[in-house]
């Protein structure tokens, strides 16, 4: 991040804000993930309170695909960032 070799020294305030940012990111991703997979996988008829097998496997696959997409898009973004502005990253 700073372009130096070693790990940057953060004081407790910066650590706290980094942790808050990370929490925000993860919560945001979790919420989006739950919303998307719920819309796509779970039948709206609500005959039963428990998930059935199809919904269960659908949710598994949905989560896997979401994370893979996330990772791939992130990698592509990184490459784009490096290609256009090698100094910034």
């Amino acid at each position: 991040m700073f372009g130096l070799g070693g790990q940057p020294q953060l004081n407790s305030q910066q650590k706290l804000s980094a942790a808050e940012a990370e929490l925000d990111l993860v919560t945001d991703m979790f919420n989006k993930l739950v919303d998307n997979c719920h819309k796509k996988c779970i039948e709206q008829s609500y005959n039963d309170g428990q998930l059935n097998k199809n919904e269960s496997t659908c949710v598994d696959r949905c989560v896997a695909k979401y994370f893979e997409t996330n990772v791939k898009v992130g990698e592509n973004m990184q490459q784009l960032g490096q290609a256009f502005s090698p100094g910034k990253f």
Partner: protein
Amino acid sequence: MWKKLPSPGWLAFGTVVSAGASGIAYDKYQQSQTRSLYMAHVEKGATSPLESNLKPRKLIVLVAPPPNDYLDTSLTLWRRWIKPILYSSGLDYEIVTGNKQGEIRSEVASRIRQLRKDLISQEQDQTEEKSWSWSSWFKSGRNTAAQETAVEEEQAKPSPFDIRSVLGVFYHNEPKPVILEDSLVDPSVAGGVICVGRGAYKEYIAGIHEGILGPLEEPSKVVAAASAAPAETVSSGTVDSETLVGQTPLGTSVEASPVEASPVEVVPVETTAAEAAPAEAAPAEAAPAEAAADEDSSEKKKDVPVPKAYILPSEYSNASIPAELSKPLIIDPKTGAPAFFEQPLLVVAVPNLSGFTTIPTRISRFYQKRFLCEQVSHSTLAAVESKSRPFTTTDLDLGAYEELDWPKSWVETGKERGSEWVQPLQGDDRVLHRLRVVEPALVPSIQPETTKENDEFNTEKK
């Protein structure tokens, strides 16, 4: 009134076209009826509840293209007739495809070698736990109490920042360990393997033998073949190793030539389950030299040879069953379920004729696909219901009638080159007695019977 009809030529044209079209329409209608019937029959599986920490029963599907044809031909059969029934029954599946000869074999064999390594490390862990001596206890005896409290204190200290302690789902619920349904049921009904295509079946059997009877490490001849100087690309066209559906027809691979391009291919594995996706797509097998790494970047888009078999069929009788696989039932340590080669096996042949002189046969087959659909669906139903029996030696001929469809020229070229698929299927009894085979005859037909008594138009009353 006869002047209202069109001319005889037009009538003939209309008859031929409408006969052809209605034949297709009727056949497709019957296929969709069959599909709906079988899907409705197994529907209860999909709508049955599943706890959040359980994973449903999982099948492995091996798909190989028919000779001289594209992978899409086999995949179409799978998608139209087998997949809907599996989906409606609620069980999970994982697809392994192979574009070239030997890909499925090497994938299956590498999975068995991985299983063996897991079993060996599991046994080592167990023996380490058991190997506890009085001398070691006396040496550490005085300090155990102090050590334990120190360890406990370290564990009791909160970790710097754990998201799971504040995130909603885990705030109140302890995450339960994930269990596979396959580990809870009787081993004879757990999981399953479906081979779509006679070639897939042959490679599966060869892969099992290679994995079980073959060595764990690459023998020198395989390493030598992989690191030899790169040769000209042999197969037609370029194969992108990342594509999952083959863009080129399956040709006979040049297995006999010792000089091949160097880096080992990343096997295209299409998975539909969560945990398999990242692990299997990532690593290529270790190519020996730096020369391989240099050529890897330039040859990524070119043909990469399939790794040679670690053991040949002629050497099966000399090889011995390894110690870790000598138990009567092998449980995969990672999943808790029986190893995939102990699971019931179904072979679905892919009839695929090609050529000019076969056109009349092909036309008649085209109009009678509904019978093939019924047969494949019935076999799939037997696989879903796990009606299986132990393997017998005649089962090596499962799906052999597909070989009657294989083009003669392709088979002859294959025999000259020593290709895998044209070799007679050999098996070792020590390995084969572990297998189970799905038996469709154990499942009664679910097509509605039209008996003479039910038939309204039958005048012969008994």
